[in-house]
């Protein structure tokens, strides 16, 4: 069978009969899949093997182009792929088995869906003939993932695989990015189909609009040029659009002079040391950002989506402003906030069009507007009281920032108070440095995301800022970092509480702390050592800088257990159901309850 000639590796298949390299025009589904992934330039596959993906794992055996990263739980695989994608701008690839493999990965898929992260998720499925029979490790993966993927497929013929993989990558990475799932029954992985090295014929059915309409652009320029109190409200779309969008945003700001605020997802698109930077807006945003949104006469929303965490009470949101909304996803327009001018297109392209149309116009004199903003800045909304007995968590983040900023680190977070403190007190200057679960708010995101980011950025300092409760949600991934010698750092703000839950219970349920205490915490230093990591405990403020320095100096992975003030709250805060103008700052008296209307909001 076949000619025994020397052929390049990408043409080789192992013949089951002769155990030799032979040229074949037919390949197994598993082989076609691996070949298609390699053609997409996939460097890493984050996965976990199991019965229904064994043929794919066999095809990956000895594969040199694709490195498989073995996680410890499928949730870790999805988040690691997210971290890789968010920090590199490339799609993340996940490979898990049927049933529990797929359902375990689902949280990460839903997370990627809400935060618009490009993922291609390959799931094994029971053989075609057994689908629907409640077979061992069978789950309706396509059904379960239908509403948390951008698109999904059940592949029933290996002849379709190459085209499906090609389209999946196109859908995941273009338009508004998102996760795409490919469910492959085991028999389809084994069955043979013709393989061609030429790219598959595209169906041309997915072609998102990327260019803004010229009359929209003209109108946008008019509106920006005549605004007396404009604000640029930017979001994750600027990051997703790529580094060019970041550069163009900075240019637009330069020409218009407008102050800039950003959502949680958009941090890093605009440099935090710029005089016109207002900080993050929203529930835990700065006073100046929220007041400027409220008092502006024009909001230019670039790649953000008026999320409930940003708007506060809708009927009081920016009552006197005109609104321009630039978004690639038409369904984001007018979803919660009606806008005056929607511009549907890719952030980078639309910003470029606006800049072209702007030409050498002169910006409005915004001195009066900036003067008002300065009075809001004077409230110093991020300040917090000093404490002689315990490390204030905000201070810990400030020191972490000061001591690591020269290394331009990548920061991932879990979800909760520590996440908001990191967003407030760590400052970002470039995109793809800030990895956090914004939309779904997934505790357990940060450690696997840091692992994915470290793989994609081997020479960068990657730190997961964590809480004592969140870190336990995917703690098993410590082993993954150990196995692949990844020097990720975990900086735990340990206050022995699910801090954000405790804070809400304090503010809205008269301090009835129902199940929010982190009882029976592990000794994080010993835990680190058990996994072959270094463990460092920081118990006093006097140890803070030295502890952070020791973390950075150690060449391998480190857990820092930073014991912080147990009852510090995250302020400023717009309480649930309140308007931007009703922020609570540190030192304000806070009522211990809320009415039912406010309690009913998320």
């Amino acid at each position, binding site marked *: 069978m076949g000619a025994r000639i020397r052929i390049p590796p990408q043409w080789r298949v192992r013949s089951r009969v002769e155990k030799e390299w032979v040229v074949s025009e037919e390949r197994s589904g598993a082989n076609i899949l691996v070949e298609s992934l390699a053609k997409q330039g996939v460097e890493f596959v984050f996965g976990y093997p199991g019965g229904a993906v064994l043929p794919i794992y066999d095809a990956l055996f000895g594969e040199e182009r694709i490195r498989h990263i073995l996680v410890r739980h499928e949730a870790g695989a999805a988040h690691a792929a997210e971290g890789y994608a968010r920090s590199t701008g490339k799609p993340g690839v996940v490979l898990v088995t049927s049933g529990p493999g797929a359902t375990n990965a689902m949280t990460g898929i839903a997370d990627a869906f809400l935060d618009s992260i490009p993922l291609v998720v390959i799931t094994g499925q029971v053989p075609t003939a057994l689908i629907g029979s409640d077979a061992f490790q069978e789950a309706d993966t396509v059904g379960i993932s*239908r*509403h948390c993927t*951008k698109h999904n497929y059940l592949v029933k013929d290996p002849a379709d695989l190459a085209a499906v993989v090609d389209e999946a990558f196109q*859908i995941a990475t273009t338009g508004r990015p998102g996760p795409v799932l490919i469910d492959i029954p085991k028999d389809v992985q084994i069955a043979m189909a013709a393989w061609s090295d030429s790219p598959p014929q595209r169906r041309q*059915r997915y072609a998102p609009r990327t260019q803004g309409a010229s009359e929209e652009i003209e109108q946008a320029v008019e509106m920006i040029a005549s605004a007396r109190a404009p604000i640029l409200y930017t979001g994750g779309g600027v990051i997703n659009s790529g580094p060019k969008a970041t550069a163009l945003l900075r240019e637009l700001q330069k020409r218009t002079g407008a102050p800039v605020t950003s959502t949680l997802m958009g941090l890093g698109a605009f440099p935090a040391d710029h005089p016109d930077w207002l900080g993050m807006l929203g529930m835990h945003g700065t006073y100046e950002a929220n007041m400027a949104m409220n008092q502006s006469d024009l909001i230019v929303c670039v790649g953000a989506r008026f999320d409930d965490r940003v708007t506060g009470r809708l009927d009081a949101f920016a009552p006197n402003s005109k609104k321009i909304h630039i978004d690639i996803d*038409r*369904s984001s327009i*007018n*979803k919660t906030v009606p806008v005056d001018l929607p511009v549907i297109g890719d952030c980078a392209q639309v910003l470029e069009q606006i800049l072209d149309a702007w030409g050498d116009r002169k910006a409005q004199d915004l001195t009066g507007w900036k003067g008002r903003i300065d009075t809001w800045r004077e409230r110093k909304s991020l300040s917090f009281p000093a404490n002689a007995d315990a490390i204030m968590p905000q201070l810990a983040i400030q020191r972490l920032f000061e001591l690591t900023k020269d290394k331009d680190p990548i920061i991932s977070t879990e979800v909760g108070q520590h996440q908001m403190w990191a967003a407030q007190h760590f400052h970002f200057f470039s995109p793809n440095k800030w990895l956090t679960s914004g939309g779904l708010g997934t505790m357990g995101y940060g450690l696997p995301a840091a692992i994915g980011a470290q793989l994609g950025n081997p020479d960068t300092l990657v730190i997961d800022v964590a809480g004592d409760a969140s870190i336990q949600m995917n703690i098993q991934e410590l082993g993954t970092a150990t196995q692949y010698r990844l020097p990720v750092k975990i900086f735990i703000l340990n206050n022995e509480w699910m801090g954000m839950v405790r804070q809400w219970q304090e503010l809205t349920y008269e301090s009835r702390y129902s199940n929010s205490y982190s009882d029976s915490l592990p000794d994080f230093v010993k835990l680190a050592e058990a996994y072959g990591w270094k463990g460092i405990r920081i118990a006093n403020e006097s140890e803070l800088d030295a502890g952070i320095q020791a973390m950075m100096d150690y060449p391998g992975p480190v857990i820092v257990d930073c014991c912080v003030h147990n009852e510090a709250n995250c302020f400023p805060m717009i309480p649930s159901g309140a308007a931007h103008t009703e922020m609570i700052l540190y030192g304000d008296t806070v009522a211990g309850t809320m009415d*039912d209307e406010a309690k009913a909001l998320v």
Partner: protein
Amino acid sequence: MMHIKHEAEERHVLTVTVDNEAGILAKIAGLFTARGYNIDSLTVADITENHAVSRITIVTHGPPSQIDQIHAQLERLVPVHKVVDLTEAGPFVQRELALIKVAGMGEKRVEALRIADVFRAKPVDTSTSSFIFELTGAPDKIDTFVAIMRELGLVEVGRTGVVGMIRGAEEA
């Protein structure tokens, strides 16, 4: 005390052309449940010779902002080619087909047949004590017919749901 508030709602007829692939109906129906939209009726059949494209007609109701979101969310699905809101797009024809079984004797039976004639409903099955009428028309015509038949011995109603198309020479 908190109470749930309701907004004013409109009825809209949407047509959706889609790739005729496995799971597409579940995707669309599921989108409505997942986002809390209403489906009053939904019809689907393939409309091309090679069975590659299906046309779905959905009747929905909701506040205008929600109708706009339904339109946008449907367009977001990869297998969806085109969404037309017939109610927005201009005058349109809407028809549905109903089968209505009526049982009765004597005067009521005669009256049922007479009214069916007025509505141009066609008896497609008959026994000495019953009829099945086939009736095509706009939904309110069928509603009216069913209401009358209720007094004359209505047994069972089956309706297809609305199929709609924009008036005039142009494709929507």
